[in-house]
């Protein structure tokens, strides 16, 4: 049985992380409508599995589920939206965000994926190293080392570009 206390806490975790989750999904799917659908699905799946997620890990589980949903959506290649699904976010409001997502991806594209993903989760998504470790099934020490190597590499690349 799930205690009322625990339910209340998970609700709070969802509320508090809504913006972060939406940002996480948008910066991967590049569509606000799809990002909202992905976050909603992640909430559904996480609540369905609440019996075997410790409260301490609930936030990481939410992000992990959302990460999988984003990967599945990208793999399916089904990123085209029907016209009637255009929601509150019009194209004009989405455009600057898309430009931001593209700008950041252009910077990170030069790194191996395992490094860029850690950096993105840390800097763009604001996750802690422990949360990234739980989310990616990778030891914390590896996550930290990928972050450091990636940042050093990125610094070098930026320096080379600005020198050149």
């Amino acid at each position, binding site marked *: 049985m799930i205690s009322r206390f625990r339910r209340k806490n998970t609700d709070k975790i969802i509320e508090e992380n809504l913006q972060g989750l939406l*940002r996480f999904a948008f910066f991967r799917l590049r569509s606000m409508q799809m990002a909202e659908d992905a976050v909603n699905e992640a909430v559904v799946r996480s609540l369905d599995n609440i019996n075997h997620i410790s409260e301490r890990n609930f936030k990481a589980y939410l992000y992990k589920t959302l990460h999988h949903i984003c990967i599945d959506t990208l793999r399916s290649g089904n990123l085209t939206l029907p016209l009637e699904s255009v929601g509150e976010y019009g194209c004009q409001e989405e455009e600057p965000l898309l430009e931001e997502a593209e700008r950041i991806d252009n*910077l990170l594209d030069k790194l191996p994926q395992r490094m860029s993903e850690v950096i993105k989760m840390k800097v763009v998504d604001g996750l802690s190293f422990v949360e990234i470790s739980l989310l990616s099934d990778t030891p914390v020490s590896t996550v930290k080392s990928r972050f450091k190597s990636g940042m050093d590499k990125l610094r070098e690349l930026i320096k080379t570009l600005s020198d050149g």
Partner: protein
Amino acid sequence: MDDYKDIIDLLTPRREVKVSSSFRERIRETVRKRKRSKILKKYILTGVALSAAALFMVILLIPDGLSAAQLLSKTIDSFLGTPNVELQVDIRTLPRDNFILVDPEEEFVTHHIKTRRTDSTTYWSIDKGGRTAVKNSEGVFVWIKEYNIGWYSSNRNTDVLDYLSVFVNPEKTLERELELTSGKYGAKYELKKEKGRYFLTVRSQKEGDFSNPYMLNKSIVEAQTVRRYVINADNNHLESASVAMLVNGEEREVIRITDVKYLHGDIELASIPSGIRFQEMDQLYDNLSGFTGMDEKETASVLFNAFKDWDTSVIYRLVSPDMAEILRKDYEGATLLSMGTPFRSGNQKDLTFVPYSLKLKNNYIKNFNLAITKNSKGVWIVTGGL
């Protein structure tokens, strides 16, 4: 972190995503609904089973009052407390084919599955004789030893096993069933306790569009199935499991776990043999340039016509070169006799099949369906059906 302040500033989004009020309300409503359904779900499902057969009245009111979801959850806990698991699973499939293929028309092939746990992650290997896959600290590797060909991905979450992933993570077998208790896929559950064991039976519907039935019963999700689990009531260990497909109204067993071992000592996963030419999975199809402006039928036609003189300037644009060279001994010199109308089938949303009739150089007439899909460049390329 301070050391990287300049780079962090560069990477920090300059615009923030806004959570609209309608979206916030949508999520609140989702949370409310899930809470309600958590309570109602098992009774609704129980009701369905009871109305289906009075026999299950006893079954569903088992003495200690566990619901199917609670039982599954307990079994998951038992796996989580177990370091390593070794399974032997018999599956009707072809030894070299993809792990997704489960076909009631094929013979049983024994799969050796090993799961090794560390503090932070789970590694596994699965060997079906002709094809082997392993997840280790480097990523996910799949290979066919006979052809010395393999594929790898450094992303350890890459899914190469489809439904079989439930067996490489044994706790996922039941976790997946737990997910299904939402009734999302129309599954029905029956649970009974007898002589110290729980017997759980799950009946699920096929998923996909079968207006063309070509893909019907070619994978677990594309078939109507009955899945049975036997769980020790004392320690909640999974003792055996089986999956049957309903073919012409009759059950045909397609998967059966014949042995489950819970091990507390170390375990050796399948090792990657030397000499395998590995290709990056993610780039496998994206590296193919295809032919811009051609539709699926034209693409298939161009490929088949290139077989006659084995024109690699065409073939390599549509089929990965390593795979093409494996196919060469059978298809070089083949001539195209006819082609049918492309169609889709089953749960493979992105896959199109093009029927063809090909005369091979040994005069054998091959009638089959070429599987093609669009890669990230938006051009048709070949993924199977040869």
